[in-house]
């Protein structure tokens, strides 16, 4: 695989840091090099939080990335702030639930997903972060979906097992949406 740098951004509490950790765990389990670098500035409740996950076959040089290959934008401020930084040919996953506008990058693959509706249908409104992660993995095939599913299940062990099923369902719904979006964009191309 090509080295991939993923920027995942949203409001604090939307779970993008956790989704990033799961992505890193899954990649590590597949024998890849990973780094997980959170923004840890003086943020307040409702402020923005983001994380950069680097995935590579080779040792990772800089964990700090200013031109990501992939952006997962959970809210409008994240899309506004980071959309321009994505490399040409990259992937942008937009949370259609909270972002009213379209992404403005014609040179990127854009996947739009109503994360809240899919999470609610999966039985856990708070699992919108895993819908977004699923949409990314489904659209790009960056990792086998089963590897991410295993990492999600691992994350909710130690007393939080009751959340495994709904989070897995949310991830799968997102992955299906991502696969559909990827197939549709190939037809256009």
């Amino acid at each position, binding site marked *: 695989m090509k080295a991939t740098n993923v920027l995942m951004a949203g409001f604090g509490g939307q779970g993008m840091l956790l989704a990033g950790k799961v992505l*890193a765990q899954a990649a*590590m389990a597949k024998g890849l090099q990973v780094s*997980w670098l959170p923004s840890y500035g003086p943020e307040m409740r409702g402020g923005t939080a983001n994380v950069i996950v680097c995935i590579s076959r080779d040792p*990772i*040089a*800089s*964990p700090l990335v*200013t031109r990501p290959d992939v952006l997962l934008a959970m809210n409008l401020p994240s899309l506004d702030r980071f959309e321009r930084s994505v490399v040409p040919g990259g992937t942008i996953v937009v949370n259609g639930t909270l972002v009213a506008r379209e992404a403005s990058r014609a040179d990127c693959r854009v996947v739009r997903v109503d994360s809240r509706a899919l999470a609610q249908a999966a039985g856990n409104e708070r699992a919108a972060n895993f819908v977004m992660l699923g949409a990314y993995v489904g659209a790009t095939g960056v990792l086998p979906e089963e590897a991410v599913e295993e990492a999600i299940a691992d994350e909710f062990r130690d007393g939080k097992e009751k959340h495994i099923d709904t989070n897995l369902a949310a991830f799968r719904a997102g992955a299906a949406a991502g696969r559909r979006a990827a197939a549709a964009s190939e037809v256009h191309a």
Partner: protein
Amino acid sequence: MSKVLMKGNEALGEAAIRAGCVHFFGYPITPQTEIPEYLCKRLPEVGGVFLQAESEVAAIHMVYGAAGAGVKCMTSSSSPGISLMAEGMSYLAACELPCVVINMMRAGPGLGGILPAQSDYFQATRGHGHGDYQCIVLAPASVQEAVDLMTLAFDLAEKYRNPVMVCADGMIGQMMEPVEFRSEGRGPPMAGNDWALTGCEGRPRRIVNSLHLAPEQNFAYNVRLKEKYDRAAREEVRFELYGDGRPDVLVVAFGTMARISKSAIDDLRREGRRVALFRPITLNPWPYAQCRAAMDAMPEGAKVLDVEMSMGQMIYDVKLAAEGTRTIEFLGKAGGLVPSPDEVAARIRALLP
């Protein structure tokens, strides 16, 4: 042992446990609070002592007490908290007490901010407290290296009976990377301490003290300490040289800034440019001769670029290494801003022939 994904701060805590550390004294401060948080859970599990002090001043003097009793011990803090420890560090070095101090550097001066910085370089490498003492200073560039250097820190502290600092920036504390703990069990307790205060029943009493009022006696004491630092300079220098053997631009950087520079160097080398990185791992003793050798291998007119997350501190050591044979260029940012791989690459590009 398999790899685990861990936050730098927590990995440092676990590495301390595995090195055999049994006492931790400290006070919370961002971006290193996960170290005490982790150790307050883990140390009691291995029969150790975790104590949150009332201040950093108290914490370093608790380290002084525990080290004086011959116990493997440590503290950790971030920049403003490390400043508060200056007096205690001088006393620890003066009394030749082994201990490890982690500084997860944040932006200064003053209260500054909580974002990463390398602006405590002078403080770490040039004494920090009063008197002619030095600390051995280790600077990791990844979570794995932080773990490995933690083991080394305890070993060197004991070997030289001296405080050892592990100096990283907040990014290394906050990021997660896969780590492997190379030691399964726990390190040994402090060995062969014929100086520790362990109760004098059945033996002559020992005194840990740094008061030497007679100047001749105090001078002899200083000479002995200097011999120890000189020995460390001969035996403990560590560095990494990466990239072309005969570069047109040699970047000198440590810690996170070295990693960021590596990305820039990789990009330029893919274009066929001749670029290299010199990364000191020991900030004190500094690898002067090794850096000079790397400079001497460069073609005439080749440039040296020092890159730091500060306004320019390590650059003085790079200049000492060059001894006036080369001009040293500088790229740096402070206040919590970090030069990006693109910024480093652009600066290197401007220096290339």
